[in-house]
């Protein structure tokens, strides 16, 4: 193990290390803690200049006010309506593409695979005008479907990379044995490979959920009204309305950040497995 375990330097080192950890964490999360504290600060505190002392009282009402005075509830719902179908769609499509590219050997296999990989890296702006224009033409501009379809298509790039590499690592003998038995190819996919992909599906679902929930660029490009806008874009417009009402801005930010954070803590192992696939060989 590297670096050398603190335990090997004696109990004093362990104690020092354990004392250092919370201090380091506090410094690291300082902006977050500041915002968390501001979100429960009464307006009177801000007026009196108490910006980062302990709040004079915990104004949980800030959170209620955010929901009462702004369409943030609607925004959150919009985000959910866009995110969930995207996760299902992108994961489903990439199970298929990943299977095709991971199991079969044919001439253009690598070419198609790297088309997905390269496409996943391109700047969003090169797609912006044509995608927006196409959505307008198809009547999908400012609708959930328009945003969902684009997200599914774009995420298929990353998901294919992920699924294909995962399937590549599965034991090939399983598939070969099934073929010798004369099992149809789609049955091999459905009954042999798909059950083995469960951990990959879980990891990708959590990751894509977070990516899409946090997407801001496409939310601003493809939606315009509070009826369809996801919470990231909504927060931007609310920030314009709540000038200097930092307690409301903070409360709104925390509400918007909560779903992916909860998802992360609930599915931590899958999340990290997904993010670090390929970091070890």
């Amino acid at each position: 193990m590297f670096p050398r375990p603190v335990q090997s330097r004696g109990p004093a080192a362990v104690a020092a290390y354990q004392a250092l950890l919370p201090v380091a964490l506090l410094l690291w999360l300082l902006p977050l803690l500041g915002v968390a504290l501001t979100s429960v600060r009464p307006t009177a505190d801000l007026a009196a200049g108490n910006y980062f002392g302990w709040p004079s009282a915990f104004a949980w009402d800030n959170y209620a006010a955010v929901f009462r005075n702004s369409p943030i509830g609607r925004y959150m719902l919009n985000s959910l309506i866009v995110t969930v179908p995207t996760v299902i769609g992108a994961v489903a499509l990439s199970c298929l593409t990943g299977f095709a590219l991971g199991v079969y050997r044919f001439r253009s296999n690598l070419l198609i695979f790297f088309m997905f990989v390269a496409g996943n890296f391109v700047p969003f702006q090169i797609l912006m005008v044509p995608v927006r224009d196409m959505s307008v033409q198809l009547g999908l501009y400012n609708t959930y479907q328009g945003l969902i379809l684009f997200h599914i298509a774009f995420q298929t790039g990353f998901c294919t990379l992920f699924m294909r590499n995962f399937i590549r690592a599965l034991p090939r003998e399983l598939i070969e044995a099934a073929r010798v038995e004369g099992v149809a190819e789609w049955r091999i996919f459905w009954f042999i490979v798909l059950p083995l992909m469960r951990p990959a599906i879980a990891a990708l679902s959590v990751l894509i959920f977070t990516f899409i929930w946090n997407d801001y660029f496409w939310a601003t490009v493809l939606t315009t009204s509070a009826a369809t806008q996801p919470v990231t874009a909504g927060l931007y417009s609310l920030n314009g309305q709540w000038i200097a009402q930092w307690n409301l801005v903070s409360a709104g930010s925390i509400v918007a950040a909560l779903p992916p954070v909860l998802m992360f803590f609930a599915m931590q192992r899958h999340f990290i497995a997904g993010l670090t696939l390929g970091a070890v060989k």
Partner: protein
Amino acid sequence: MTEARPSAPRAAAPPRSWWRANQQRLTPWLFLAPGILMFGLYVIWPIFESFWLSFYDWDGLGEARWIGWGNYRELRSDPAFYTSLRNNVLWLVLYLLAVPAGLLIALFLNQTVFGIRLYKSLFFFPFVISQVVVGLMFSWFYAPNFGLFYKLVEWLTGTGVAVLADPDLVTYGIIAAGLWPQIAYVMILYLTGLNNVAPDQVEAARLDGAKGWRMLWYVILPQLRPATFIAVVVTVIGALRSFDLVSIMTDGGPFGSSRVLSFYMYEQALSEYGYRMGYGAAIAVVLFLIMMVFISGFIWKMVRDEREGY
């Protein structure tokens, strides 16, 4: 078509057996079809369309007018374009600091003491939060007169700095905000990598008297190479894609000094400054070509690894 002859009798047999004979060849294409269709329509085709559009003068509604290299000629003498380009370079260089910083935190946290798992998750936490929220957090952090950072500088030097209102500092301030989640991401990549470092090699090197920096440089880092590769890829791409933070924290200001290419493109094509789709497309093409240099490098390495593996 000459090869089709020997199989002609088989074609006459019931379709079921034709399928059986060809299913190994056709199945991958059936599985790929929906994915390729969607990806082609929404990602591949628009790239070509943007290239084509960049030769037009178009407001997004009326008739598009062919102007050849006109947009690119205009870019060449556009000071805002150069500001954006310069900021993109700054982003790229400074964002790469996330790699050593992430490694440092990973080394710090790679211990087994009580509660370390929770510490690791909490250090990773900033990556999970939307960049919009990160941007708002740092705006508050930098806010003149009462922001934590402003107060800190005031306490240290006597006068506070309004980072986001200062044309010379604003980009650095935004990059610092971007580094926060990016360092967390790199950290988790390295933590996973460190977890998989071969313990026998470390022990052998220790017996040979290697420790500290030499151990890190000659024994550990070579084993972390896959993690470093991914960390560099995601950091370079992230730096060139930076948009959210600029939009949230400054909207390109003050006086357009914090623009980056991605933001300038959006501003030209889709904001109150006018709907100059062709000009926007030209900016996007420049950004795309810059990114293609890096993407080709990454893909080239991945193809090489792939060939070696099989």
